[in-house]
């Protein structure tokens, strides 16, 4: 529509901002809305198009960024008090790529502090709420991005996924969300949580939109040593080809106790539909999945304990006073970090300590290797693996804040793909009795995005998920 001149990028931005204006009071999806910068970018997009300069499929598209991606001159806090008022001097690689692709960055979305959480309640700036039911969480940690896209205050968003932080909120808000293969999207400029697990990816309404965003932001980046040199898979090749002849593995371990019946029912129905569409369904057991969560909660906090050490008040961000530099650092960190971040730093520091390293961190690395082997074995028999994305639908705000273990269990289905570095996508497949969305996860081997998108597109078609949140708008 932009190209035919029916609509301008400025109009599109205006409608998104209007939507944000009507919904933000209820959702708190954004921490910062960059009206000025977005306005300039939209005007530029229109001007470029008028001159015949088309930057690609994201040209003029208003998108949101999780606030753990650095934006030059635009406050970036990772939802932490410790980075309050921090304006990065550079753009993350994904941000540069979006800008080059003509996208309009609407603003920065809320997250659990430093991406540590599954509900976006661990934000120093207050929680975000689920557009489907504002008494419930939007999931996390990319909950702000999910809420914004679900509510229409952005057409798409980037999130980051360390243990499920894109897929679980996508699942809880009826969106498509995916974590690509580790190393395919540059982490340069992403405020690190757990470096060996973190990966940026899109949250969008449709599978095709997810492909468009991913194609724009991924690719080799010399600034990230762990970046995949290429070649990169074709995301379109499988779209529309259906699943006829595809071998689909259903993960036995990701069902049963703790899984809501509505979630299990939806997933089972989709598996049946896939079978009907010609896929060969195989029951697959990956026993190491049962210990994946434990390994994750040693590896991720261990890396985080070092990654977050730089926040000391010496060079940037929040600084508390102190008579000595040690006191200044200690006080800054005590005041600047929230309770969940503090908990994970302590956990990670402990796991790496002399005398405990082998029992904790060392052991967790062995489990990680075993999970990779389990996956490898499974992928000899099947092309993709499927499961629920989250054991439950969106849970009420406040329900799990005092029970970290219950909160951690939200990510039980998503964590294995992070530990293996594999791609995985969540596609909405239905609603439960109370009208809350349910997500279906498709996992694929490393650089298996082509087959993953092929299966996901068919899941999307079979589900025919058209529902939209029934968010009551506040009059503008």
């Amino acid at each position, binding site marked *: 529509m932009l190209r035919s001149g029916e609509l301008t990028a400025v109009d599109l931005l205006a409608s998104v901002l209007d939507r944000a204006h009507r919904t933000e009071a209820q959702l708190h999806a954004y921490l910062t809305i960059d009206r000025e910068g977005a306005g300039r970018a939209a005007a530029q997009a229109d001007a470029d198009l008028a001159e015949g300069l088309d930057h690609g499929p994201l040209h003029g598209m208003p998108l949101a960024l999780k606030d753990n991606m650095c934006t030059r001159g635009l406050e970036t806090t990772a939802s932490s008090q410790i980075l309050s008022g921090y304006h990065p001097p550079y753009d993350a690689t994904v941000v540069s790529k979006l800008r080059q692709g003509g996208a309009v960055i609407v603003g920065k979305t809320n997250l659990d502090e430093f991406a540590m959480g599954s509900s976006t309640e661990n934000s120093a700036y207050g929680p975000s709420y689920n557009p489907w039911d504002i008494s419930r969480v939007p999931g996390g940690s990319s909950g702000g991005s999910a809420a914004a896209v679900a509510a229409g205050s952005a057409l798409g968003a980037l999130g980051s996924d360390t243990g499920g932080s894109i897929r679980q909120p996508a699942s809880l808000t009826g969106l498509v969300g995916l974590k690509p293969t580790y190393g395919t999207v540059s982490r340069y400029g992403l405020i690190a949580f757990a470096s060996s697990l973190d990966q940026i990816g899109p949250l969008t309404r449709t599978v095709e939109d997810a492909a468009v965003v991913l194609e724009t932001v991924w690719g080799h980046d010399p600034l990230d040593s762990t970046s995949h040199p290429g070649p990169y898979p074709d995301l379109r090749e499988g779209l529309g080809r259906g699943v006829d002849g595809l071998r689909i593995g259903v993960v036995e371990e990701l069902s049963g106790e703790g899984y809501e019946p509505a979630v299990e029912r939806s997933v089972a129905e989709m598996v049946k539909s896939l079978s009907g569409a010609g896929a060969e369904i195989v029951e697959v057991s990956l026993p190491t999945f049962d210990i994946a969560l434990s390994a994750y909660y040693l590896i991720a906090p261990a890396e985080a304990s070092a990654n977050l050490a*730089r926040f000391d008040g010496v060079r940037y961000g929040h600084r508390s006073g102190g008579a000595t530099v040690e006191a200044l650092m200690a006080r800054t960190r005590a005041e600047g970090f929230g309770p969940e971040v503090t908990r994970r730093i302590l956990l990670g520091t402990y796991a790496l300590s002399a005398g405990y390293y082998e029992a904790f961190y060392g052991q967790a690395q062995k489990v990680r290797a075993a999970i990779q082997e389990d996956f490898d074995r499974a992928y000899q028999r099947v092309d993709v693996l499927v499961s629920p994305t989250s054991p439950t639908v969106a849970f009420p705000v406040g329900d799990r804040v005092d029970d970290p273990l219950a909160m951690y269990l939200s990510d039980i289905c998503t964590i294995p793909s992070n530990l293996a570095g594999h791609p995985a996508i969540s596609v909405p497949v239905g609603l439960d009795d109370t009208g809350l969305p349910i997500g279906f996860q498709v996992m694929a081997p490393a650089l298996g995005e082509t087959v993953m998108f092929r299966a996901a597109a068919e899941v999307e078609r079979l589900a025919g998920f058209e529902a939209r949140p029934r968010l009551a708008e506040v009059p503008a």
Partner: protein
Amino acid sequence: MSWQPVIGVEVHVELSSDSKMFCGCAVEFGAPPNTRVCPVCLGLPGALPVTNRKAIEDIIAIGLALDCEVSGHSVFHRKNYFYADLPKNYQISQYDIPVCHDGHLDLTVDGETRRIGIERAHMEEDTGKSTHLGETGRIHAAESTLLDFNRSGVPLVEIVSRPDLRSATEARLYAQELRDLVAELGVSDARMEEGSIRFDANVSVRREESEELGTKVEIKNMNSFRSLERAIDHEIDRQIELAERGGVVTQETRHWDEEAGVTHSMRAKEGSSDYRYFTEPDLVPMEPDAVWIDEIAAGLPELPVARRQRYVGDGLDEDLAGVLSASPPQLRKVYAEAAEAGASPRSAANWLVGEVTGWLRREGADPDALPLRGEQLAELVTIIDEGVVSVSAAKEVLEGVLAGEGSPRAVAQKRDLVQISESAELSAVVEKVVEDNPDAVASFRGGEEKAIGFLVGQVMRETGGRADPRAVNEILRQALSR
């Protein structure tokens, strides 16, 4: 029963690569504070390290020069500790798999070769620099601290010796030898005063006959070779004295106080830090292949040890070979050219490390621009051997050559320094001296051999030093035997 010191030395070498270890910032000593920095070396949120290939090449060169094995697979670790000038509050370093390991360095100590084991050479990044403002300049008394991150992320190679050193002097020689080696390799500026080489020492003592190692103490803050030697000597004495009084050496880190000439205990906390090492997840393993290592090996220059051996083979004694080997490259080039042109290597080397070096120092001249060619030096040596000029006159000839007055023969002519070798002219002078000094003549004739020396001296004086003393001696003896 006597005590034996057991010493190991850790040498930190800052590489002089164009850019830092993990970012593109320039490595530049003396730049205005915080002007050679970027998100990576400032530890800004979201910044990621990318390994500098040249630095890896340099450490491999160091490893090969020390006969180390180069690891086909080696990884970076994070070393975690909080310090204001460490921007990420972890240092990217190496832990269990260094780039280079198990090598050695041969030292010549009192004419004997001592082989010092090299445990490892690993790669790491340097920290920023703190300047403590306050009366003492020490952190605990500082009123405020200034931080400069220009040095943050500069590539640093840590070379760890085995505890094979047995005296403070050996430790100093070892450190100096390493300094010469990295300078020769061209991988470091190797300037002590700029901190591009720093060292720590581990010292323990044991009974001479004991096989077991004593408790080691790490000493820090030595900023010259001399202070390294002094600090170790002091520490050895301290430990022996302590042990002889029945005391026990505690494992700790001690700080060398240059002015007071003593070491004192640093806070125990710093000695017993738990650095919680783990593999750096932001970097991939380094896997240098054989082709690359061979290329680096092929590019290695001749190293000081080999060069000294070559000089000894030329006929130079150990000391002279050592001094020449440590001389600026241009001097060594002139040496080689002079020897090639037929000069005796010994004479050429002596002139270079003596008079020529002295002249450079007096003039404050750049050795690279030395205005002396090998053939000129060879000519100088030749005209001395031929008796054209005396050794003392030759020094003046050299001055003239260095001043650009021409070839040694030309300068000798021009400055009227050619020896009087015509016996007629010399005989006249001799006769005059014999007449003028009847007492000395009588003594000589009376059997007092040394009186001839006096007479030779008189002749030399009369000729203004232009006579060949050997010829004078001969003619004098002939005259006196008449």
